């Protein structure tokens, strides 16, 4: 049938990657997050656009992007499809994963829902395996407060060792701080060193072994470990993504 890949991946992909920086003053920021965490609201609040936000999972199926200026830079914000994980079990997850890994955004914001943080942390941990430049945005702090849920943002930042910002995007609180942090991370003023997942010993052994086999092809140590992990967990889509984004003829676009 050739249906899913044609329509979903290919087109979606060219869409995602066709971001052209017009000058060096522009930085690309990816916006990831579980469905229904107010990701689109954060997107709208930052960019001043009015992408429709609906209270149901799976709302953002296409990729929206918008700009905003902060200090002396222009930020191109890419709203990735809402996903629960990056294990590529759906087209959306594959799009989000490939963009963060191969699109090399200058920073990635993971929007989470303060009222059900645990579920959202799965995605945060997975994004942290893909890139160093992660900022966790704990959104819906107002709703959490109403529900009497307290989130220790400093503690979370300590646990993950990445910047954590609390926001209530609908009311506009915390956005300034978020933009400041995005600025600092994408400019390299803050260099997060995420506390990465450690797996059981036997898995770690195999990860190391696999890494040594493929290290000649992959310079970036973060991507190296992540690729080894994907090869180990038998991800069928990863070969396709490698073909598409890492082959020599693609180098010009991947390396910025």
């Amino acid at each position, binding site marked *: 049938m050739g*249906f899913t890949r044609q329509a979903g991946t290919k087109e979606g992909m060219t869409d995602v990657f066709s971001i052209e920086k017009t000058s060096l003053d522009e930085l690309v920021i990816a916006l990831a997050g579980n469905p229904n965490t107010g990701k689109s609201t954060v997107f709208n609040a930052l960019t001043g656009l009015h992408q429709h936000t609906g209270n149901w999972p799976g709302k953002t199926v296409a990729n929206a992007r918008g700009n905003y200026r902060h200090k002396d830079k222009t930020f191109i914000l890419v709203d990735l499809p809402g996903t629960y994980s990056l294990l590529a079990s759906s087209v959306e997850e594959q799009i989000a994963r490939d963009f963060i890994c191969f699109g090399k955004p200058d920073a990635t914001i993971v929007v989470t829902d303060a009222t059900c943080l645990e579920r959202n942390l799965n995605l945060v941990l997975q994004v942290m395996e893909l890139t160093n430049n992660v900022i966790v945005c704990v959104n819906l702090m107002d709703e959490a407060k109403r529900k009497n849920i307290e989130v220790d943002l400093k503690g979370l930042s300590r646990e993950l060792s990445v910047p954590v910002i609390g926001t209530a995007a609908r009311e506009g609180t915390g956005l300034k701080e978020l933009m400041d942090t995005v600025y600092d991370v994408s400019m390299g003023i803050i260099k997060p060193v995420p506390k990465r997942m450690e797996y059981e010993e036997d898995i770690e052994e195999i990860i190391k072994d696999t890494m040594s086999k493929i290290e000649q092809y992959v310079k970036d140590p973060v991507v190296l470990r992540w690729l080894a992990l994907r090869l180990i967990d038998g991800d069928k889509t990863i070969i396709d993504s490698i073909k598409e984004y890492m082959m020599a003829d693609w180098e010009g676009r991947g390396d910025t």
Partner: protein
Amino acid sequence: MSSMDSSGLSDIIFISKSIKEQYGSEFRDRIVKSIYNRAGEVAKKVVKNNSEKKKDADKKIDDILTSKTFGIPLMLLLLAVVFWITLVGANYPSELIGKFLFWIQDRLTDLFMNMGAPSWLHGVIVLGFYRTLAWVVSVMLPPMAIFFPIFTLLEDLGYLPRIAFNLDHLFKKACAHGKQALTMCMGFGCNAAGVIACRIIESPRERLIAILTNNFVPCNGRFPTLIAIASIFIGGAVAPVYGPIIASLAVVGLVILGIAITLLVSYLLSKTLLKGVPSFFILELPPYRKPQVGRIIYTSIIDRTIFVLGRAVAVAAPAGALTYILGNIYINDMSIIAHAAHFLQPLGHALGMDGFILMAFILGFPANEIVLPILIMSYLSAGSMVDFNGLGMLKKILVDHGWTYLTALNVMLFSLLHFPCGTTIWTIRKETGSFKWTVLSALIPTAVAVIVCFIVTQVARMF
């Protein structure tokens, strides 16, 4: 990123294969489990949940709204209330806007007269172009300005996933994906949007089913037509007090029929062209949220109402001019429109309609919004002037041209079931990337519409 050549790639493929052979797929589960455990640990350290009250309230509401007994009836009741508000609320403003716009038409006519413009120019611009525009705006704007904010409100509250939850087992029975209920809901807004929303369905088979059947729920281009005809012919048949209620129930009935046909066609497709079993999915019921009134009004008025109306006007105005021209160029004592309608008459009659109606549906292919205006234009193409006084005038025009209750019913059925509009078909072509499925997406609904109207008409004529 460092470079990788084809030998590097084959190396990696080899490594991946040998890992798979050596260890099977045991690691994926363990890796995922480790991540979940870590997420749990971190959350335990940083989250302090002092109350479960709101959750309990949500759960109590959900126990009723998604219960097996009350879920679907409540949903239909809600739908009926929404239509009722739309019908009652739209009537008066519609009349007001109509009067105003047709007052302008008279002034335009005066202007053309004073300038000594030739009558064909007045005809094309005022009677064709402007009058259709006035029709579309006055008939469509008020219902949309009421319906969309309510629909967006329900969406913002978090009711849509509950609808999906309620309908899930029905779709499962039809061997389709439960999320199709969600894409179907989007179809109520716009079928093209509904088709795009089908991307949330992972399995290609079930996604195709959802795309091919999305058209069976009326989009907002067709709602005004359905609402107008329902309130004239069905609501108008009973005492004025009950009119809007009966008319809303009729529209609800049509929606139920649309859903039933969606399920039936989905079932037939999965037994024939798209064989397979439904796949599992997890549907998250999001918390109910306090709606953001400002955003709802913005979204529903700007993004939806103005967008849809703009599209309708952009298509309708030239179509109106074209219809006027076709209606006023005579070949052998008959206008071109009359020739075409005459040609379609036998088929139209067999389906309980007439040639003009079928032609309006065909000319309405670019956008379903303009079917009714085009029909009125072609009925009135001889140029007879009619003063606008709300839906009453519409009824008079239709009845004068031989409409009966059977005609009204068939027009509503045909409108509900017929081929998708141009935009939707174009979207389907883009989403499926397949010519074959695009053609089928037009053929299947058309066949269903023809069969249903034919049967209804023949059965009705027996009595």
